[in-house]
């Protein structure tokens, strides 16, 4: 695909002898939300963790194939440089408990020793919190600890923290699975708005969420990419029988 931000070519991943991903081919165009769905244990989380190389934290992992971020090979880049370009939001909200809301947002700068003037930091904090739709709720408490926020607010704080680094891709690893329905719908709306700034890769086991939020959907089953295409098309006329069965709730 032309102009794709992320290209995955014949990508396989192994945990020890166990092959988790089989020859995945995928390309994600700019400024879209691409959903990865599939039953639990299918390898979708492993796939996005391979995108920012977080899987390397686990012992005994191995990959084959290639991945490109804007035509640059991800596996020849330094992980710490790569991870500043690819933000990640996790299943459980994980703001830094020792830091204030303000410091949480600029944690990527502070912890990496990237210097900015106070004014620039103020701007980054305000813009990131606005993008994460959290500014109005926290603007008077910026110097309180982030852990006093509600779960949904904490998750939006984590999104703001990732956005503050101006990433090219935002990886979302089941970002709403620990949240209540109201926070979930707020965050889903947020993703649709964020498309203008950043490309998102959303892992979800919630079929409805993939349908509501994403432009492209990939269905992964037992480590294989079964089907990938525009969400609308896949949800109305799936090409593969397994996709159809999954969408109609026959398994998963």
């Amino acid at each position, binding site marked *: 695909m032309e102009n794709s931000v992320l290209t995955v070519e014949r990508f396989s991943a192994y945990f020890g002898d166990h092959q988790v991903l089989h020859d995945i081919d995928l390309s994600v165009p700019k400024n879209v939300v691409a959903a990865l769905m599939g039953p639990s244990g299918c390898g979708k989380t492993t796939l996005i963790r391979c995108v*920012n190389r*977080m899987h390397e*934290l686990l012992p005994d992992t191995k990959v084959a194939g290639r991945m490109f971020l804007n035509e640059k090979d991800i596996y020849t880049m330094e*992980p*710490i*440089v*790569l*991870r*500043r370009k690819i*933000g*990640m939001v*996790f299943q*459980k909200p*994980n*703001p*830094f*408990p*020792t830091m204030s809301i303000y410091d949480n947002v600029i*944690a*990527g700068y502070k*912890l*990496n*020793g990237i210097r900015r003037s106070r004014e620039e930091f103020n701007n980054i904090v305000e813009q990131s919190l606005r993008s994460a739709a959290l500014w109005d709720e926290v603007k008077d408490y910026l110097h309180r*600890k982030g*852990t006093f926020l509600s779960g949904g607010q904490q998750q939006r704080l*984590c999104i703001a*923290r*990732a956005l503050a*680094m101006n990433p090219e891709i935002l990886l979302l690893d089941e970002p709403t699975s620990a949240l209540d329905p109201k926070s979930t719908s707020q965050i889903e709306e947020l993703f649709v708005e964020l498309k203008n700034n950043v490309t998102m890769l959303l892992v979800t086991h919630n079929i409805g969420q993939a349908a509501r939020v994403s432009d492209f959907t990939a269905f992964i089953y037992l480590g294989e990419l079964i089907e990938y295409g525009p969400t609308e098309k896949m949800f109305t006329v799936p090409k593969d029988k397994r996709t159809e069965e999954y969408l109609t709730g026959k398994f998963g």
Partner: protein
Amino acid sequence: MEDHVRMRLIKNHIFKGTVVLFAFISLLPLLLILYYITKNGISVINWDFLMNLPRPIGETGGGVFNAIIGTIILIALSCVFSIPFGIAAGIYLAENSVGKLGNLVRLCVIVLQGTPSIVIGIIAYLWVVAPLHTFSALSGGVALSIMMLPVIVKTTEETLKLIPYHLKEASLALGVPYYKTILKVILPSGLSGILTGILLSVARITGETAPLLFTAFGSQFMNWNIFKPIDSLPYRIFYYAMSPYPEWHTFAWGASFILVVLTLAFNLIARGVSIKWKIQF
């Protein structure tokens, strides 16, 4: 049937009563120690006792000023030696829960904790006193730091293990290098636990006498030089208590009182730190 139930209820009461009684009895020694030390010691405490040096045999009066300063210097020295090693080892163990080196270190820490303090004194003698040809505060600090080490290593490991893994992930996913993640995210999150461990280990070594007998040795004089023998509260208690003079016996009580108050203070501060500074995840 009725009788059966009544019997059981009676047994229940007896059991509960026994537990309470034994719990109280086990408290008694501590209460008695505190009572005796306070009763005999507090009357000795005054400005002269705190601020004067020990006097030679035959002169009346004298105090424990050099012993208090000596104990503080010894604590400071042992903290300087043990805290960096202890925290580093604790980080290593928390980060490598499996693996040969980790298990070996864990085993060593347990063995070290069970090593008699007099043996640790001998080791410090061999390592520091013998090569330098003099008893010294330095050697005392080394001996005490070896005693502190296991507590610091263990509490650091336990504290860091309780910090959720997702915090580390959050930091690494921002492109923060591993060492900065540990130093700036993980360690600060576990600060209260680590500090508590350090304070408890300080409380533990404050009263140690055996490892100081042939390292810090003890001294009649005020000494700020860490390469010279130095006095300490436990040693001063030992010295005063072993003397044949009744006045010195009361001094031993006074010094004991100071030592107990000091140890108690460290314990209470540790408790305060662990509650007040606790980080909510």
